[in-house]
């Protein structure tokens, strides 16, 4: 049986881009967030009543996997262009679109895999309650959309930026802003400066985080679903921009 081109590309992306060390860091970093931030801030809030900070943080960190997945997608395109494999693959039996979809699918798999690891870590280390199948499906669907959004965003960056230093700097800045101006680590509060509140509301990671948290804690509401709809539209827009930038990017060699 002939394996479809996109799946061959996904397999290749996984095999050549995931050595055990980087895999541990990729999946371990969010787990470390969970452990350090979870236990650290939990102790600060120990006097308060209500749900524990760990319960709040766990779905947030699961949503954060969408951003990590996005960086995987951008890095694959960047590395392939930098090390000549992009033009080599594109003189092979693939279309440019297949190559791009292969990266997006790889990123998505990393996002979902990471979320499952987080779920296991939260259950084993932190002792959070197991979730139902419907909640799991909503969580995975939210992370899938988030992974595609951030994957497309990073692909757009990788297609436009020519310098390695610039690519890394912009990626670090993006991750920082997206991560900390979202509801991953703390809720959107009216006490925040208005600019930060606006940033929170415009941040796609907030939508993913809220949806995952809603499904995780059984409090999913209409706002969460509306936000996911907005994220879906935003994802399509960024994806179209990324595809256009990538198709126009110079892949040739000299």
């Amino acid at each position, binding site marked *: 049986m002939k394996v479809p081109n996109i799946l*061959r590309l996904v397999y*290749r992306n996984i095999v050549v881009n995931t050595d055990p060390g980087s895999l541990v860091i990729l999946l371990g970093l969010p787990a470390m967030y969970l452990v350090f931030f979870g236990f650290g801030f939990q102790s600060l809030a120990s006097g308060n009543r209500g749900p524990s900070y760990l319960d709040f943080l766990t779905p947030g960190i699961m949503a954060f996997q969408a951003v990590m997945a996005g960086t995987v997608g951008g890095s694959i395109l960047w590395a392939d262009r930098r090390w000549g*494999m992009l033009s080599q693959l594109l003189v092979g039996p693939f279309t440019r679109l297949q190559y791009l979809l292969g990266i997006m699918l790889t990123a998505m798999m990393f996002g979902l895999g990471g979320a499952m690891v987080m779920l296991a870590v939260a259950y084993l280390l932190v002792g959070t309650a197991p979730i139902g199948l419907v909640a799991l499906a909503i969580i995975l669907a939210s992370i899938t959309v988030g992974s595609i959004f951030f994957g497309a965003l990073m692909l757009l960056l990788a297609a436009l930026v020519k310098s390695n230093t610039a690519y890394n700097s912009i990626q670090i800045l993006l991750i920082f802003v997206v991560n900390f101006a979202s509801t991953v680590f703390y809720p959107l509060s009216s006490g925040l400066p208005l600019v930060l509140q606006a940033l929170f509301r415009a941040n796609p990671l907030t939508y993913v985080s809220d949806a995952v948290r809603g499904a995780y804690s059984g409090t999913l509401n209409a706002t969460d679903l509306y936000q996911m709809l907005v994220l879906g539209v935003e994802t399509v827009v960024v994806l179209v921009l990324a595809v256009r930038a990538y198709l126009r990017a110079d*892949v*040739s060699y000299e």
Partner: protein
Amino acid sequence: MQVGQEPPRTEEWAVRAENLRHSYDRRHFALDGVSFSIRRGEVFGLLGRNGAGKSTLIKAMTTLIQPTSGELRVLGFDPSRDGRRVRERIGVVQQAESFDFTTVQGNLDVYGMLWGIPKAERERRREQLLTRFDLGEIRRRRAFDISGGQKRRVQVAREFMHDMEILFLDEPTVGLDVIMRRTLLDSVRAEVRRGLTVVFTTHNLEEADYLCDRVAVIDEGKLLALDSVENLKQLYGGKKTIDLTVADSDPSGFFRALGAELAGSATLTVAGHAAVLLTDDTKAALSAIVTLARTHAVQLDWLNVRKNTLEDVFLHSVGHGGEGHEGP
């Protein structure tokens, strides 16, 4: 006759190009009206200086760029419209390095997998290629950690992991030692005997002489000469080449006079104190050299008469021997 009217599978030609033009900036043409055909099973050499248009031509044939105008057919397909069909049937060894972050054998394996080669066949080909290209000892080393020559061998070996009808080799022997270069060229020859068509760019004219059935000389985007190596060598009839070097600090007057004296009967290419003279009347040319050297009080350092090589053909086609060029 319009290019590409024949059904693809009965196409006698591997590549046909007619009046091909390509511009990167809409002002200068990297390809400027190039027309040629490559027969199936032929080794076709592209010779030219850096920036002559060789790589642009390869990019057009391998679907990486769309020519600005003109007709191009590869295996009967239009690369601009049927890019995927073309790519499924060709192999490309690029000039630049291209590796996956894995071992030498991992690179071969992954590449074979990408081309859909079944696992058992992949392993068989991998072992065969590791041996043929003397890569056995470095098979477990990361491709980025090996030497330049070894990388080149891996790139070429990797391309033989899959089947193809045309192999494009863009300067494949750069950085290889003499033995490995010959091994590579012989490997290509063996594949040609099995029906493979090869398009080969090189700066090394001896290689082109050794490997190519026909060569095209390209410069400033234009095709200057295209024929079999032997025919090109005979292009100037039974002409011979005279190499001469003079010892004087300013031999320009001598070379000017020599050019004028031999106008119409010889081609003179000058580079500093050295000159290459292509003529069919060596007796008259030698006589003029000696006479004018005496007249201009120039001391001859080196004088040699020899048969034409492909390098002479190339130099005369391109019309440059170096910094100073004086025609007859």
